[in-house]
């Protein structure tokens, strides 16, 4: 798990998470939300967040494999 921008400030650079096989990123987000009040606030469903699996933007229905790198972050604002 990696976090960026406002999420990184709230939750740190990242963390290791074990997931049941077949879980998607929505399930991962729910699991993180349940893990602490800080996570619940930063990852709340009302917030528009984007996610990446192995450094490619994906929907939350994407399923991470073993050792996958998942990232949650706010909408991007480069340029």
């Amino acid at each position, binding site marked *: 798990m*990696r976090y*960026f*921008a*406002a999420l*990184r400030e709230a939750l740190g650079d990242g963390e290791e998470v074990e997931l049941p096989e077949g879980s*998607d*990123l*929505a399930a991962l987000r729910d699991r993180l939300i349940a893990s602490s009040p800080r996570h619940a606030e930063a990852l709340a*469903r*009302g*917030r*528009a*967040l*984007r*996610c*990446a699996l192995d*450094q*490619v*933007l*994906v*929907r*939350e*229905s994407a399923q991470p494999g073993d050792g996958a790198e998942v*990232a949650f*972050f*706010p*909408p*991007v*604002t*480069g*340029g």
Partner: protein
Amino acid sequence: METPREAGARLPRTVRIQTADFDLGAEVAVLRAGDHGIGAVASFIGTVRDRNDGAAVAGMTLEHYPGMTEKAIDAMVDAAAARFPLLGVTVVHRVGPLAPGDQVVLVAVASAHRGAAFQACEFLMDYLKTQAPFWKKEQTPQGGRWVDARVSDDAALARWGIAAGNADGPAAGEPAADGGPGASSAPV
């Protein structure tokens, strides 16, 4: 009449993420070097404004996702090359602390003729604004604030037939996995 590059042929490109400033003339010289088939170069430079959303901006810090940033820009150059008959692309994006007036991003595009160069330059910037993992944090008199994504940037990419799904995220309580506009996967 040129056609977009054949699938599989990789367009020459320079992609760099750096803290240092860049020089337009030097970058264009490299972009053009040795290819006399180039008849047009279009470039865009984004710079730091001293005001945004009604507040004075003393400076900003740009954060990115190392590794993913390069992949995302590489993919967007491929997407441009599939649409336009290009001969070369340069993308330089700065990260770290920047002051008003500083250069932030350079996109330069070479083609045989101006139409493709102008269009591809705009396409690349529209794509970068909504699909590349950069985030800006502004310093204002009220303190630091993360810049919000703009729906207008998604609309700019939509003109090219690509659903950006960046700023128009899921409505409150709606999981992105439900396939709302915010859940659209990026065209990678």
